[in-house]
């Protein structure tokens, strides 16, 4: 059976053209647009070298973008396999159903875990060992956090529960965030509280 037939059979109402139309209506970027935005945030030559030779963060992002795109087109099994490959190669567990805005940056991919249904804005940056999501399977269903644009999450932080993190906020290392965070502040501690206003520029 051809791939196109599988797609048709699985989901007759979301054929490729219908998906493309919907994406245009909601102005969600496609695969290449996402990739261009991600690439723009990285030093060019270093990234090129990493993609070809090394275990670079960009390769982890690339695998996630491919898996996410295939998931959007309702391709079976392959997104999950790509996620497993990402875990094995980079130690980075990003579910294909995660919505990650353009310009994502992963500083070090080791131990990053993002649960399904988490939504992140544009130009977010995650450091190593960051967990975003519920972290365990609950009877109440998935209650996942939503992160705004330009959010910085430092190493070892846990963001969990049905919360919102505002644009430009920073989460300090090893913090546990369980409540909403206003835009442009730094939070830290277990449980997290507001430490100060972020000194990063609002741009």
């Amino acid at each position, binding site marked *: 059976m051809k791939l196109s037939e599988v797609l048709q059979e699985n989901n007759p109402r979301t054929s490729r053209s219908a998906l493309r139309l919907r994406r245009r209506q909601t102005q969600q970027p496609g695969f290449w647009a996402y990739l261009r935005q991600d690439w723009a945030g990285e030093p060019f030559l270093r990234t090129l070298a990493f993609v070809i030779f090394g275990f670079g963060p960009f390769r982890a992002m690339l695998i996630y973008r491919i898996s996410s795109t295939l998931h959007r087109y309702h391709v079976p099994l392959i997104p*999950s396999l790509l996620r497993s490959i990402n875990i094995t190669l980079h130690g980075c567990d990003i579910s294909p159903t995660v919505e990650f805005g353009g310009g994502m940056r992963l500083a070090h991919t080791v131990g990053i875990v993002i649960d399904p249904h988490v939504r992140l804005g544009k130009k977010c940056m995650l450091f190593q060992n960051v967990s975003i999501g519920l972290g365990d399977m609950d009877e109440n269903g998935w209650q996942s956090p939503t992160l705004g644009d330009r959010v910085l999450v430092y190493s070892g932080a846990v963001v969990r529960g049905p919360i919102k993190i505002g644009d430009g906020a920073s989460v300090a290392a090893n913090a546990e965030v369980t409540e909403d965070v206003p835009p442009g502040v730094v939070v830290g501690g277990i449980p997290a509280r507001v430490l100060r206003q972020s000194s990063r520029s609002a741009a």
Partner: protein
Amino acid sequence: MNTTGTHDAGFWECIREDWCGMPQPYTAIMAILGVGPAGSVLIYRIAHALKARRVRLVPNVLRVLNRTIHHCDINPEARVGPGLRLPHPTGVMLGGQVRAGRNCTISQHVTIGGGSHVRDGRTQALIGNNVTIRPGAVLSGPVNIGDHAVIGSRTVVTKDVASGALVGGIPARIVSVADSIEDR
């Protein structure tokens, strides 16, 4: 006192109950390929069963395989009851003397290990049934964790935790205690 960690389930019962706890699609195919969260549990179960039958070398090879594929280090000598769930196996470390009951959920980056302190002939944790351990928690030394307890994120547990308690912080303090099991 709870009857923790003393399950008598065999290999196939463990496999079956682990299977039932996995709601994700394609889990079966993925697990057979040895990938996905269910794959890491399956590899550990096989390693544990072979270790119990005194097979040499193979359990350690499987352990290394688990470390390579899933980045989780589970000692084949650890005894974890059926219904174990590792939603994200990345960074999970279970030591050889860990004893855990049924239906435990262990999240990513959790360390359950121990040092030199010996208590009741063990140096590592004794965990009850239906315990949830959230990301990044550390259970250090021979602590007892009661049934239905919840260990919060990034908590360092060095003392016993009562049944139904939710603990958090460094060192662990009780945040709340569930009145009934339904509250959890």
